[in-house]
């Protein structure tokens, strides 16, 4: 962690902030603040360079054209790759998740290169759009409770050998590959199809990002009463599809 405050970088809210993605930024900031940390939130528009000295980078979902533009600009900028080389933590959602992979299919139907920060490749599904509540078991290595979220995408994301599935779905679609995987991660870079926003539904993932960024094993507890109540409600809802 650089200096005395935690630097949380929100990448391209002008392009990738469609499904309440600001919520992930707010939850990380709030939970850091509750642990007595100073948080320096940096919103980076797509005409600005991505700072390379951030601690946690958050990238949201977006519509098809903004996704293409964001990938072009991030590849050209190069700041996010350098930040990951410096050990930064990255958490990405939906369109942002696809951009972190090797390639995805853009709004013009072309295969477009991503940042290659996650060993995944995305294509466009031909079936119905995946929309609805999701319930999944988190990768056991992460030692986290079940993942709850809301998905709304048509992408299919295949994992390569150096990416681990973030979770295995019980209800819902996740990566859309039919093998039950949802999202992907390596040591410092995470991707998911879950909106919700996902960190509001899964505050312990926000805490995981903080622990990785701070290089600590534990954080002081905070009052999670309302998060727990919301989780219980949404987990019950996911198991009873409408």
């Amino acid at each position, binding site marked *: 962690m650089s200096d005395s405050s935690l630097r949380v970088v929100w990448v391209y*809210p*002008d*392009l990738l*902030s*469609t*499904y*309440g*993605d*600001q*919520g992930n930024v*707010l*939850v990380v900031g*709030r939970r850091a603040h509750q642990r007595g940390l100073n948080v320096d939130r940096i919103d980076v*528009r*797509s*005409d600005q360079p991505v700072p390379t000295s951030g601690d946690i980078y958050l990238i949201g979902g977006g*519509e*098809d*054209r*903004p996704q293409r*533009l964001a990938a072009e600009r991030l590849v050209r900028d190069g700041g996010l790759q350098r930040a990951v080389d410096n050990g930064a933590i990255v958490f990405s959602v939906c369109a942002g998740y696809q951009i972190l992979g090797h390639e995805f299919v853009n709004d013009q139907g072309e295969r477009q290169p991503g940042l290659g920060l996650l060993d995944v490749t995305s294509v466009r599904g031909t079936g119905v759009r995946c*929309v*609805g509540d999701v319930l999944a078991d988190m990768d056991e290595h992460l030692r986290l409770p079940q993942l709850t979220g*809301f998905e*709304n995408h048509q992408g299919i994301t295949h994992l390569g050998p150096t990416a681990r599935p973030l979770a295995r779905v019980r209800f819902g679609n996740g990566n859309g590959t039919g093998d039950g995987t949802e999202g992907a991660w390596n040591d410092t870079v995470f991707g998911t199809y879950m*909106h*919700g*926003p996902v960190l*509001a539904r899964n505050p312990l993932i926000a805490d995981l990002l903080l622990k990785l960024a701070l290089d600590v094993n534990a954080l002081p507890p905070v009052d999670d009463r*309302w*998060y727990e*109540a*919301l989780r219980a*409600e949404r987990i019950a809802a996911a198991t009873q599809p*409408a």
Partner: protein
Amino acid sequence: MSGNSEPLSPRAKLAVSAGRAAAAVSRAAGRGSGSVIGGRVALKLDPDLLARLAGHLDVVLVSATNGKTTTTRLIAEALRSEPDDVVSNALGANMPAGITSALAGGSRARYGVIEVDEKYLSTVARDVTPKAIALLNLSRDQLDRAAETRMLAERWREGLAGTKALIVANADDPLVVWAASSSANVVWVAAGQEWKDDAWSCPSCGGVLQRPGDEWACGECGFRRPTPSWALSGDHVLDPHGSAWPIRLQLPGRANRANATTSAAVAAAFGVPPQTALERMFAVTAVAGRYDVVSYQGREVRLLLAKNPAGWLETFSLIDPPPAPVILSVNARGADGTDTSWLWDVDYGRLAGHPICVIGDRRLDLAVRLEVAGVDFQVCQTAEEAVRRCPPGRIEAIANYTAFQDLRRAVGN
């Protein structure tokens, strides 16, 4: 007066009366106003009915993400010089079936003032050959089932290219400007738009928009805010001659003053001077329960509908300051959109200082949202409990679509 002088064909007449019969059955069965079912039956019997009914009228279409029902009412009042000379879908049934039913409703009408769902604007504009189309704003709304916001603007643009209608469009919303600028005949209105987060990206080239003050322009392709001829300035309408006309409304808020400004510009196109138009608009009070103040349990509950981030933002700016208590209610049923992630686009930190009660199917989403905003709140099971926890006096109750209907029922509106 044009009136409905030309008779409808026998088939169209049959369709209209069959539609009325279906509507009457629906009403008798307690299934709402019957306007949609009536329109559906009529359209099935005569698919060209919409065009035929509209052929007798000077039609104004109104579309937007927010404010279309209210603006439709304001324009209808501004144009009305005799009791029967305007037909309108005043209750917000804004898809082709509901519109057909509304147009079939009056035989002496001269004007049809019609609210149109954003997705149907191009279709309806083709069918009814409108004289004017008012475009207010476009922003994210129910993304789990609606088209992407920019795609809607693109569809408007394609649908309106070559139209003979006068387009009255908001110069302050880049998506609306993009949609309108394919038309030959546009009156630009500086109506404002507080919500900006769907238009940082140039609708034309994808460049980043620069927004100094009230202006906006793309740094790459030069697409920019057109010079408006009408403007909302505080609580006055500025007309193209530079005259300022006071806005007197019974409806609250900046957004409604913006709606009145657009309505005055539309009325002027039909020869109604701004002063007359604005005086007539004063007659509009609650619109389908919105802004109604209801006495309930010794409190005065003001009912405010806000369905999406832009709507919530405008609503926060019109409520009484703290310590006025606020009740928030959110559902996520089909008509609301089943994804609640939009709650995180709304700056609930602006409610700091208000006592807040949250209700509705998704009150726990609201609870987490407010917790993260660092704002105090109470979670209540029912509207009655929430009202009881508020001190006597005015309560601001803000709800999204089906939550608003629930709230109206709960307080006996």
